[in-house]
């Protein structure tokens, strides 16, 4: 039994979303919670150059638990970066399509790292902290991102890679109740609405907490010193609402939430318009430009793009996987970039890049999997409604 080529993994050793080749020759690194995951029964796999838990009790159970209660995810592989220095606003606006004039203290915003032709190098979160901008970038791309930023930012800007910090995500409808019991600060946790963050004490540990995440649920992302990570994880998982959740459910949750995964649903070959990520280009920047790839992207905003990222719902139970071709009759019109069985909906769902003529909701399409044609329909995303606390 060997994993199917389309999912690009060996089933018994690797997790399919691991496409990080830059570290394949190096031994995987260990994150601060490595021993804690093993103690909790986590099945560890290599991901983005680190050993990470793919699951504990099972992806299905962990997925549904997160949708109903709260799940704790270790995302310490992601890159946490602090930018500061004179001329920060202008320097960062030259790098990202963000409008920093509207990013208030404590606000969090989604942004994109773009190349000169408007291709997506990474997606990231930008927060305004006292003293600078705090960025969270993808784990698999963080070394390239940091090199790119160091190259592009002027010498006056200090880039501090906060690699001694761990990052946890507590996600689900009961996340607030569980976290609030252990948090104190200058203001209550309830002061945070979606995409806002602040400094708190969490179980006696200094923590930067933002109300954000990658599951579509209400929830929090928690940056803490690495040496305190196990104590905080233990504290949170001691709450009846909280269980540890692995990468497997993280992937199925984000797919249901319609959230793209870097390296799969967005790549340097895709621009933000075809990727459906125009919201990552702030309004002022859409008229003014002045960021990498602006000419291409502003043109695409006016003229549209040849392909667009859409959602697909499938009949039956066979899942479409990354790389599967999408057809209308004999015409190949697209390719699946993420796909799997939806634990919440109990049928397969997928994301695909499809020719613009065939992207309207309800359009009948077919996906070729293992020589079979699976009937599918273009569907609005998210597949499962977001429940953010706005």
């Amino acid at each position, binding site marked *: *039994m060997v994993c*199917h080529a389309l999912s690009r993994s060996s*089933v018994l050793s690797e997790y*399919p979303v691991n496409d990080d080749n830059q570290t394949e020759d190096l031994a995987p690194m260990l994150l601060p919670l490595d021993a804690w995951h093993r103690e909790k029964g986590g099945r560890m796999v290599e991901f983005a150059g680190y050993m990470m838990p793919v699951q504990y009790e*099972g*992806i299905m159970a962990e997925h549904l638990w997160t949708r109903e209660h709260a799940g704790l995810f270790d995302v310490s592989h992601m890159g946490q970066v602090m930018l500061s220095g004179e001329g920060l606003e202008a320097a960062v606006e030259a790098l990202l399509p963000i409008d920093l004039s509207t990013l208030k203290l404590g606000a969090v915003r989604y942004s994109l790292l773009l190349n000169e032709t408007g291709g997506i190098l990474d997606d990231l979160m930008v927060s305004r902290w006292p003293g600078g901008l705090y960025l969270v970038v993808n784990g698999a791309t963080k070394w390239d991102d940091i090199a790119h930023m160091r190259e592009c930012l002027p010498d006056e800007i200090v880039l501090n890679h906060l690699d001694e910090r761990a990052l946890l995500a507590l996600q689900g409808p009961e996340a607030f109740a569980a976290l609030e019991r252990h948090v104190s600060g200058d203001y209550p946790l309830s002061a945070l609405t979606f995409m806002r963050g602040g400094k708190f004490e969490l179980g006696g540990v200094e923590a930067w907490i933002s109300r954000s995440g990658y599951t579509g649920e209400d929830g929090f992302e928690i940056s803490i010193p690495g040496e305190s990570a196990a104590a905080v994880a233990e504290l949170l998982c001691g709450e009846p609402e909280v269980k540890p959740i692995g990468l497997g459910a993280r992937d199925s949750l984000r797919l249901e939430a319609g959230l793209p995964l870097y390296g799969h649903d967005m790549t340097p070959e895709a621009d933000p318009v075809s990727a459906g990520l125009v919201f990552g280009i702030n309004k002022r920047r859409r008229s003014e430009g002045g960021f990498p790839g602006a000419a291409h992207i502003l043109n695409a905003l006016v003229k549209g793009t040849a392909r667009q990222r859409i959602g697909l719902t499938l009949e039956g139970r*066979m*899942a479409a*996987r990354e790389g599967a071709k999408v057809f209308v009759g004999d015409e190949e019109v697209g390719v699946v970039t993420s796909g*799997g069985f939806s634990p919440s909906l109990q049928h397969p769902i997928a994301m695909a890049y499809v020719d613009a003529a065939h992207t309207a909701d309800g359009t009948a399409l077919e996906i070729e999997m293992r020589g079979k044609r699976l009937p599918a329909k273009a569907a609005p995303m998210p597949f499962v409604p977001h429940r953010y606390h706005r």
Partner: protein
Amino acid sequence: MTRYFTEDHEWIEVEGGLGTVGITDYAQGQLGDITFVDLPETGATVAKGDSVSVVDSVKAASDIYTPASGTITEVNEALADEPELVNTDAEVGGWLYRITLSDASELGSLMDEAAYKTYVESL
């Protein structure tokens, strides 16, 4: 009735010239929640090592390579509605297909239960 195992974690139970094939309990545990099984066509002639079936889990799809050559005579129809049988009862009720063996000598290269147990412990 003898049961043989492959390094790819399939089992085949042979009685007379008929084999019943499935995946091992170890394999289902590694795959996690199984959501769909793509079964072969009955009547198909297959050669040892051919990918004849695919087991989908939430996380990935895995090919099943037939441990022996022959003709598929029957598939486990219960898996259409209850693919999770492969999780809950991998080595009995979660069987995948039955096959009439065309070359029983192929079985000689497979592991017996004790050898498979040792093999799994070495992983």
